[in-house]
């Protein structure tokens, strides 16, 4: 047998365009599935499953991790209407959100704009502004505990200014406790969000500012008449982030006030923590989680609608 006779003749298989397209699409689907599968598994296992569990547990009376659950359907939600603390928590959370967002977003935007002008020293300022985000919540709480103590820095500062009549027990006075906590969020939020705004504003073409300046516009006009309208969508995103962090946050209440004095710093996030970890009413706490979840969705949709409408103009 000669060498040429041993060779297996290569069969040229030809496909029609249609068949080729089908095979290609199938191949793309398979590779797409393998690409998204890890993320999908992650989402189902660690996002969707816990979320579904929250809804499931919210229909239970469950008074301890190791105690049996009892299905009570909507009773936990009906209880909201008879629980005076829900109204208090909603009121405190609303106040927190209103002051916390209004106090942070405009100032953060202005600071971010200032940073984006890249004036001398802006790098140092940017680092300083971002510092609160790098500190742990517990460390921040300790700093502010020292500030707010009856013999703390704030009262000492007021004494130095001759304003000792304004001395307060800041965290244990009903009229100052909530605002003392909001002030911590504003302090940390302005710096952090200003760095976010700086990053977004830095992407705007410099020619826009230069053209406006040639037309005689000052920084104030440029900030509000040019940068602000172009940033509406991003402002919406930052507002949503700030909103979500306040809505579900409870760290400063847990560390500094325990929701008190009385119910002065009792927010929805704290109430959820209180019911889950202190009072061991797991079902009721998850019902509160569902409430927070829906409030979150409604407000996010609202913010998106407002910002998309504003950005059209």
């Amino acid at each position, binding site marked *: 047998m000669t060498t040429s006779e041993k060779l297996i003749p290569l069969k040229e298989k030809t496909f029609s365009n249609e068949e080729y397209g089908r095979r290609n699409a199938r191949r793309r689907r398979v590779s797409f599935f393998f690409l998204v599968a890890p993320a999908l598994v992650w989402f189902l296992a660690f996002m969707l499953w816990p979320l579904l569990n929250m809804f499931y547990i919210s229909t239970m009376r469950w*008074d*301890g*991790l*190791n*105690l049996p659950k009892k299905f009570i359907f909507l009773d936990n939600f009906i209880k909201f209407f008879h*629980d*005076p*603390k829900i109204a208090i928590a909603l009121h405190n959370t609303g106040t927190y959100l209103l002051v916390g967002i209004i106090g942070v977003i405009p100032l953060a935007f202005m600071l971010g704009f200032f940073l984006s002008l890249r004036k001398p020293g802006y790098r140092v300022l940017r680092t300083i502004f971002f510092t609160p985000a790098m500190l742990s919540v517990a460390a921040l709480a300790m700093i502010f505990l020292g500030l707010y*103590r*009856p013999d703390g820095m704030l009262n000492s500062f007021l004494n130095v200014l001759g304003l000792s009549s304004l001395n307060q*027990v*800041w*965290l*244990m*006075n*009903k009229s100052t406790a909530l605002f003392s906590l909001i002030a911590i969020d504003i302090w940390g939020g302005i710096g952090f969000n200003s760095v976010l705004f700086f990053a977004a504003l830095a992407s705007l073409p410099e020619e826009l500012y230069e053209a406006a300046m040639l037309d005689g516009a000052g920084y104030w006009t440029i900030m509000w008449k040019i940068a602000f309208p172009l940033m509406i969508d991003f402002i919406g995103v930052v507002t949503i982030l700030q909103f979500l962090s306040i809505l579900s946050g409870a760290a400063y209440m847990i560390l500094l006030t*325990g*929701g*008190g*004095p*009385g*119910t*002065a710093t*009792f927010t929805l996030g704290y109430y959820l923590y*209180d019911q889950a*970890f*202190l*009072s*061991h*009413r797991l079902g009721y706490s998850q019902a509160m989680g569902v409430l927070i979840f829906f409030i979150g969705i409604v407000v996010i949709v609202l913010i998106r609608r407002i910002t998309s409408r504003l950005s059209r103009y």
Partner: protein
Amino acid sequence: MNKKIFSITIAMLMIASLLLTACGGKPSGPVTVTIWHNWGPDDAKYTAFKSILDDFRAANPDINLVDEVYVDSDIPLKVETAVTANQEPELVFTGGIGNAFTWVDSGVAVAVNDYLTEWGLADKFLDSAISQYSTADGTIIAFPIEGFSWPIWYNTKVLESVGLGIPKTTDELIAAAQALRAAGKDGPVVASGADGMGGKLFELILQSAMTDAEAKASLGGGDWTIPNAIKGVETFVALRDAGVFVDGVEGIDYGGAEARFGTGEVAMCHYGAWAFADDAMKPVAADVQLGGFPIPAGSPHQLPVYFKAFSAKGIFITPNGQAKIDAVEKFIKFIFQPEMIARLVESAGMNPSIKDVPVDESKLNPLFAQTLTMEAEVVFISDTYMPGAVTTDFGRITQEAFAPGTTAEKILADLAAAYAAIK
């Protein structure tokens, strides 16, 4: 050899070796018993407890005793979570309060009734200690180990500076407040109004006007219409408004209160046996006389009142502990030997939960020694009967109660609402 046959042979050998390993019987080596507790280096009982653990290890080389220190308030939740994962320690040292009373029913701990008898310990414990770890149906949830006195500390030097002795009634206390303030000093009582410790002083003042049964009905059952419960709250408000507490008491925490008293600034504070050996208290310890809180006119008590109980610490056996019950038995029998408990009494002023502890009185902390002879009446602390679900609300209400302007009516209404909410 054919590759296929070779692969199958190797696989079969591996499976066989695994099976043989599994059938190899119990692994040899010591049994591990883990204890979770909070008697760490910051606690007055640390040295004595460590010596007990070391002696146990030396006497029982077949048991690997591991002790892990956690913050006391974190332990209950950590244990409950660990049990769900079957990762709990064998033994837990924690207070007989709140949710711990549900632990036997929920499988976090096992009842110790039978072990008390089988291990010959039943007659060893004080009845009052065992009763504080017993549920209504007679289940004993743990072995009580740490009792405490929680008296009022009087700095006699501060009181004498304005020519006063120790007040026995609330009227005398108000007079002392007026005298101290007239002399340019702060109010006589420092309390941690900002945390749960202040809540205990609030409770003690309420109980100064109530019988134990009334205290159980109000603090335990939520009946805030009892005349003496109302009187107790009104007494607290009257004392606060008369300047009995230091200024800004509502913002002071545990450490802050200890610092104020320890530097000799104020005349009175409310601290338990755990603080007898605290460094912060040492500068004034020689001037301290322990006693009860002054009683109001018409009080059902004859003497000033203070708390004394065993709710501070019990030893709970978990399901994992039950699985290693032989090792656990050895440890329990070891630590409840009178000479071991004596170490904790002598070094840390711990009230023993067992009888006949051979204490060398010369070694006792002088403040602890005072509690054995002080003229005051014990009232029953609510730890064992206040519903666990109401304790956080109770804490917030008492925080607010310390703030000027909070009326007795508001405090009573808030208390009634808090108890109603858990029914």
